[in-house]
């Protein structure tokens, strides 16, 4: 297993429940992906900001409001809704 990730922790963060076989498979695939990035990291690349990825302020959006979808359209694509809001299982940080 490559250093830098823990498949159980990643699965938990991703809200995935994995079988031992899946864990083995994804660990191996992730190792291969990380290995690829490590190869990229060896390349001699400029350390300054890449000009090709820089935009100037002219590429920004003006502060002009545009149309919205409307609550009906937003809630229609959700599995459950109530009173114009999307309904989800209770998630709370309430005082226990």
């Amino acid at each position, binding site marked *: 297993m490559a250093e830098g990730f823990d498949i159980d922790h990643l699965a938990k*963060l*991703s*809200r995935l429940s994995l079988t031992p076989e899946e864990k083995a498979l994804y660990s191996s695939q992730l190792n291969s992906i990380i290995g690829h990035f490590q190869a990229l990291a060896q390349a001699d690349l400029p350390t300054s*900001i*890449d000009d090709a*990825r*820089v*935009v*100037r*302020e002219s*590429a*920004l*959006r*003006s*502060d*002009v*409001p*545009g*149309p*919205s*979808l*409307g*609550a009906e359209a*937003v*809630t229609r694509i959700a599995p459950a809704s*109530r*009173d*114009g*809001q*999307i*309904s*989800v*299982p*209770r*998630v*709370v*940080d*309430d*005082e*226990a």
Partner: protein
Amino acid sequence: MSSSSDWEVVIGLEVHVQLHTRAKVFASSSWGFGQEPNEQVDPVVLGLPGTLPVVNREAVEKSILFGLVVGAEIPAHCSWDRKNYFYPDNPKNYQLTQKDFPVVIGGSVEIELPGPSRNVMGEHKHVRIHHAHLEEDVGKLSHAGSGSLVDYNRAGVPLLEIVTEPDLRSSAEAEAFLRSLVAMLTQAGVADCDMEKGQLRCDCNVSIRHPGAPLGTRTETKNLNSISSVRDTVIFETARQVRELEAGRTITQETRGWNADLGRGYVLRDKEDAHDYRYFPDPDIPTLELSRATVERLAKQVPENLYDRQRRYMDTLGLPFTAASVLVANRELAEWFELSVAAHPANPQGIANLVANDLLRDLSAAVGSTTGFDEAAPAPVSLSSCPIKPAQLAGLVKLTDEGVISKQQAKEVFAEMFKSGQDAAAIVDAKGLRQNSDTGELEKIVQEVIADPAVAKSIAEYRAGNEKAINALKGPIMKRTQGKANPGLIDQLLRKALG
């Protein structure tokens, strides 16, 4: 056992401010308080396939303006990252934020602590800003029965997160910092900071240590939405940590919530390590160059610093601290005051008294009371509908200074001006208020009054050394002049006549 006084509290704040824009930060959807749920949502807000976030220029400029207000560095570039987490307040499962290259770096906010009494200025200090980054707000959850309801109107609203260095040392300093920050944000037009609309929220990091010792383990209390909640959290958390450490226990680094109704904090979910958010550069939003031309243009919009203005009013115009502090708290009011002083530069104090007391009182009465993030602050007043113009107020003060009307009459004229918007001189004439300063005529009346046997006793008492006895003579003189005699002049003439 050590006492609580041996402990020093160390506070750092993360202040989240919704910026004053019309559209959202990466989407064109409008936003604003009081809309029906999910009516201000577009495909970019939801992160639907095929959509592309594009940064709102106004949100960037407001962020830069904030940086310039606090004297920060505006870097040559800034960029956005994805902060990944699964929670229904977040429609995309990541929040667009700035991790490594924020728009504002450094700077400081000057604060003023409460003085020993209301009319004595307190100590000033500077609180360093670590950085401020421009991110998107998340949706709003409300909890109903076994489920939670999600409204994404707030998702994507431009949010500037202002992070301080751990420079604050008491709840009073935290309060003073937030007051000062809110004043600077609103006076520069960066944000409105309306607590009732949730436009300003604060996370509060607290740790304690013995002075000079390394920083202790801190806790973070999240989502405080008023200055009093921040103050109460600092007091509560300090006491709790002192209790824990003095009982030989340790402080756990944890995320906490605050129950304002019960006045106590509680533990939230375990604080996730930063790498749990698996930040990475957002591939949809290119790195942004922040041009020096823009920075220079925005620098011209930076208003005079609150406390620089206060010092100027006190040192140059000779105003007392109470009047100066009231005026500078509201930029519009301060600028109105300055226009009035420009029209009558001889008496800034006289103008300040009327503006800070009478005008502010009447304007506030017209606004009614509201609750901002700072519950202790008076309702913000607007001068746009003020019936009196700055030059008109200057005219009133000038009439008083010239002795045409008394200070008492000036109050009466002011009330009439606020009602009708007329010039002071017109009201003085219409009401026949002009004081009689005709020495010849008044001398004649004085002679007539002191010749009246009815006042002989008072005259004898005055001559015998009872200073106050002279007042009994002023009433009959005022009566004969229908109250229009200049009181100062009467006093002078009486003393002369009585030798």
